């Protein structure tokens, strides 16, 4: 059976999608590092930084999730890897959301659970970004 490939280039995710997805990494990673710093210094400002970085990661990740859902719903975009990417990003977002609630506790009340969740979120965000960019998408596959 003949397959016609109309373009030689694989299509990556939409540039805005890419920026938002990649943006979750420094946000969630920064939150984890800030939490680690708070845990070692008890300097409350690190905890404030972490709280905002988590919210930033949720905003970026939330819009990236919408892109991922749209990609999943379009047959020309849908590949097996896209579902894995979506699932990992969704997991990062959910853990990140509960982490945001955890960080709403006052002072050391957010610890040590907040640090653990921040590390998990950062790892998931890195994985999601990896899967998001690594997924081959062949444009115009008929």
């Amino acid at each position, binding site marked *: 059976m003949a397959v016609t490939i109309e373009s030689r280039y694989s299509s990556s995710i939409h540039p805005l999608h890419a920026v938002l997805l990649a943006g979750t990494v420094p946000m969630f990673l920064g939150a984890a590092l800030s939490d680690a710093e708070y845990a070692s210094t008890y300097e409350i400002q690190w*905890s404030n930084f972490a709280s905002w970085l988590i919210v930033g990661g949720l905003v970026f990740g939330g819009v990236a999730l919408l892109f991922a859902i749209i990609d999943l719903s379009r047959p020309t975009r849908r590949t097996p890897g896209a579902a894995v990417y979506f699932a990992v990003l969704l997991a990062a977002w959910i853990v990140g959301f509960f982490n945001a609630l955890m960080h709403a506790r006052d002072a050391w009340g957010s610890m040590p659970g907040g640090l653990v969740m921040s590390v998990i979120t950062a790892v998931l965000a890195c994985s999601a970004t990896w899967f998001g960019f690594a997924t081959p998408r062949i444009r115009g596959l008929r």
Partner: protein
Amino acid sequence: MKRSSMIAAATIASLLSGCGKDPVPSQYGPDPQLPQPKRGLLPNMTIAEPAKWADQRPTVPQGYAISAIATDLQIPRQTLLLPNGDILVAEGRGGSAPNLKPKDFIASYIKAQGTSPVKSGNRLTLLRDADGDGVYEVQTIFADNLNAPYGLALVNGSIFVANQDAIVRFEYQDGQTQASGRPVKVTDLPSAINHHWTKALAASADGQFLYVGIGSNSNITERGMTAEVDRAMVWQVDVQTGAHKPYATGLRNPTALAIQTSTNQLWAVVNERDEIGPDLVPDYLTSVRERAFYGWPYSYWGQNVDERVQPQDPDKVRSAIAPDYSLGSHVAALGVAFSTPTMGESFGDGVFVGEHGSWNRADPVGYKVVFVPFRNARPSGPPVDFVTGFRGSDGKTRGRPVGVTVDPRGALIVADDLSNTVWRVTVQKAAS
């Protein structure tokens, strides 16, 4: 829409906090039950849903009557009875604490739903009932352009006002209805951030000292320990020189002070910390012992360590003493006044406590004025409701009591900062 979203939020809150109705432990008196600290992912919150009084009135015991002696005020907080029977009302709203975390933005919006939208008065209003018929026909501005005035005291012919950033003094002649000029500053008070901005005030029996209640700058040090210098304590201020020293420390938010005339002892009501459960930590009434440390932030009710404070300070915890009398968790006691025998037999010996009411508890508490009976100058039994009905059985809140003042002619003055009213409860006949 607003209501349904509130219900949705409350439902989510109860799911996430992972706890349903808990039996309310007995939390009155010197030895309250203290459950283990707990906190779900969302705090329990039930915000007052404001409503108008219309023709309703707060409920008082049989043999007493209540009437509104001043309305349309601008956030009345504390009141001061002058020798000729006139009443001064401090009106205002203070605080300049910035929102630091995403949570602060959400919480400040939610809490604002349960308070008066009226602009801060920043003034003292004088009320006068010249003919003694119980109707205060004069309602006039005694002084304005103050900065969130709260605590009031009359010492040797001067009215002292605790603004949120300084104590100021007005010279006062009996019968005056308006201050004769701008006030003179006595001393600055700690005012950076001013998370808990109210500055309670009382004068020693001999008129030599003022006592100032200065609240903490956070719930539990979440603004850092540097913000807590000179906070969560009672100052003793020399009336003549303005010089101050800490009188007692570790009092998270001492919102009202009063001198017990039989002993010349200073008493305070104090609001304790939040977010470790609906039944922690009890707000309390206590005699304030000089140089004593009452725990905040390191521990509560004596030496129960609060793990949220890091680094901890075991030496401070070992020095912490427990307060005298628990009023119950989250009731938000904002007013205290010693009674006189003219208040009737059942309410003649003890203190009245104005309870603003909870916001961080699924099952609301407070929203009333209670009477703590005393015997031999010490609390002697559980609190008795004195003025209730601020929060109706319909869930609507019509008023929130703040300052209470006893008029020795046989009346209790109650400031209500939600309906912007001053209430006066009078003895109708000898209560039995």
